[in-house]
């Protein structure tokens, strides 16, 4: 520490988030010599982001509305610890104009865009208008919200079924419904409004054409405060279940260099149109050589690591640099292929959330594997927050090697205590459409996941031999156990194995 280090870009950064993304941000801050302040709800007192931060402060009870969404409390903590910057992560307050404004009012640097850019891009109706003006192609649809059922039905017929209903305030796949037939339109609209009101406190929903065999392809951009906007190519995020991304990759297997350049330029034009600053992602639907603007996410994406691995950059570092007024770096030449797999606590067949306490954990490692995880032994997975617990990201020389590496890494993963989405991802990576690159957002709907016969046989044998060993041990030990309450074979096996270790 005696070699005079450069003064850090900020003195102390409050990370207004939880889980893997809070850790992710803190890691870069630490590398930049910036102190970190974690905030936590009572459910997260022992979370890694709390334990790894320089300072930590409680916000309130577990529900987000009483903790991670409390702008007042967060700014109070920022003031108490004399923070000069705040990173919002993704979700929670990251795309709330009010929060950006409150930070500005408190003279704390928000690692993100201006309140105005957040407002424009956060309202999907306004965003489409801006995009249209900037010459970014749109999916045919309505630019304004339509509330009247009869008018809505008429417009939907005009555009042609299937159509989509999207919450104006939604994002990340949340608040989207597809309607196949006219008869389903009005009930679906009501359900979408209810969901939107519950999730975002804003029930506006708009209508657009449902593009068939669509791929979800997005462009990562970075803008500085001097008007420079650069892009880091694309990410393909078409492997989705329940409209939530599960596997992402970069580059997209079917994009030509010409289309990549065209999409990148369109994304940069949109960012420039709203005086954007910081990291942002412009999401497109891609179908048969055409691309359509979907939305712009005015924050870091969950899947940003695939871009980081291909370009060899640290996007959070870039976010912090441009927030401090430095010039955005010119993206280096990307190389190889990266794949991210989200590890969600959910039942692999129903996609229902899976709750429990993590009792055992083994994360993948080795060449080309990056782990971004909030998991620790003893973690209780509660229903309060998102079910995504970790991301396994791999990088390799080409797409085929990256698929093999991702599969290998997922096979090494052990998360015991909850079910995870890992088997679904393994099956998706092994599927013909994914391997050939010829897939779209419906990949997982068509996927018939089958547990391999060998796994079923081995599981059966293992369960049977455990019972046999229990009975055997009980027999051998019956004299010793003598008096007292009778032990179940399972208790016995457990106790005896603790002493022995090896069974033969």
């Amino acid at each position, binding site marked *: 520490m005696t070699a005079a280090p450069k003064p850090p870009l900020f003195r102390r950064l409050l990370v207004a988030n939880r889980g893997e993304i809070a850790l992710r941000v803190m890691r870069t801050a630490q590398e930049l010599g910036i102190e970190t302040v974690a905030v936590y709800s009572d459910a997260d007192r022992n979370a890694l982001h709390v334990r790894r931060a320089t300072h930590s402060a409680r916000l309130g009870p577990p529900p987000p509305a009483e903790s991670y969404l409390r702008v007042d409390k967060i700014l109070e903590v920022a003031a108490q610890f004399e923070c000069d910057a705040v990173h919002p992560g993704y979700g929670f307050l990251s795309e709330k104009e009010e929060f950006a404004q409150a930070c500005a009012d408190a003279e704390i640097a928000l690692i993100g865009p201006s309140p105005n850019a957040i407002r424009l891009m956060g309202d999907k109706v306004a965003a489409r208008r801006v995009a249209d003006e900037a010459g970014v192609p749109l999916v045919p649809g309505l630019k304004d919200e339509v509330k009247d059922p009869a008018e809505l039905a008429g417009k939907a017929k005009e555009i042609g079924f299937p159509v989509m209903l999207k919450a104006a305030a939604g994002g990340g796949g949340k608040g989207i419904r597809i309607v196949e037939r006219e008869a389903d339109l009005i009930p679906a609209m009501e359900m979408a409004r209810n969901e939107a009101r519950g999730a975002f406190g804003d029930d506006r929903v708009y209508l657009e054409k449902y593009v068939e065999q669509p791929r979800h392809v997005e462009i990562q951009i970075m803008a500085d405060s001097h008007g420079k906007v650069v892009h880091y190519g694309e990410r393909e995020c078409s492997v989705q279940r329940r409209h939530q991304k599960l596997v992402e990759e970069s580059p997209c297997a079917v994009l030509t260099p010409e289309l990549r350049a065209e999409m990148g330029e369109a994304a940069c034009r949109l960012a420039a149109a709203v005086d954007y600053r910081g990291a942002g992602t412009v999401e497109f639907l891609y179908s048969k050589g055409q691309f359509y603007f979907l939305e712009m996410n005015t924050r870091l994406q969950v899947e940003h690591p695939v871009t980081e691995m291909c370009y060899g950059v640290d996007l959070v570092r870039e976010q912090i640099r441009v927030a401090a007024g430095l010039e955005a770096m010119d993206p280096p030449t990307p190389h190889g292929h990266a794949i991210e797999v989200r590890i969600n606590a959910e039942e692999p067949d129903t996609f229902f959330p899976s709750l429990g306490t993590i009792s055992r954990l083994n994360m993948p490692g080795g060449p080309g594997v990056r782990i971004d995880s909030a998991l620790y032994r003893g973690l209780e997975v509660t229903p309060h927050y998102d079910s995504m617990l970790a991301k396994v990201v791999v990088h390799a020389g080409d797409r085929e090697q990256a698929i093999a590496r991702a599969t290998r890494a997922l096979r090494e993963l052990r998360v015991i205590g909850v079910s995870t989405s890992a088997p679904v991802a393994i099956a998706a990576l092994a599927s013909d459409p994914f391997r050939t690159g010829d897939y779209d957002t419906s990949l997982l709907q068509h996927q018939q996941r089958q547990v391999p016969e060998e796994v079923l046989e081995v599981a059966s044998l293992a369960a049977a031999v455990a019972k046999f060993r229990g*009975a055997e041990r009980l027999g051998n030990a019956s004299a010793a156990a003598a008096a007292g309450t009778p032990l179940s074979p399972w208790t016995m096996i457990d106790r005896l194995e603790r002493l022995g270790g090896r069974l033969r």
Partner: protein
Amino acid sequence: MNYFTRLDGVEREFRFERRGGQLLAHCGDRTHVLELSMVGDGTAFSLLIDGRSHDLVLELEDGGSVVQLRGERLRVEVLDERERAAAAVAGSRAAGPQQICAVMPGVVVEVNVAAGDQVEEGQTVVVLEAMKMQNPLQAEGPGVVSKVAVSKGQAVAGGEVLLEIEAPDEEPA
């Protein structure tokens, strides 16, 4: 003593034997050499079957085990000969009504049926909101709603029975 396992609807029969310091498993006409070693605290095991290596976690439950293996989590029923015979004697058709349960704690945002309603397989009967998602719960088979235990807006615990569906007495034509 033979052991019977049931997994994914398939029954398998095993017999184990110690011979010359080895643990053998017989299954049909196949015989395997087993080597089972506990890792750490007693739920993780390394099992070698004829040298083939399997890394597994085995949690014991009533009537079987939950086995975790290569990313899969499988509930295996295990009965020994005696237990199976006893089960066969007791085993009448004790199949009760179909129960729609809350898979996790949440809030009921919709109840689409009332007692006495006829439902089809796959029909959404209740929508449960949890972890920011609306989860539609579907009937697993056709029948008549015999009981509705919850109403819209009600908070429910994980595993709570939300409604019950009686199967039709006869197979419909």
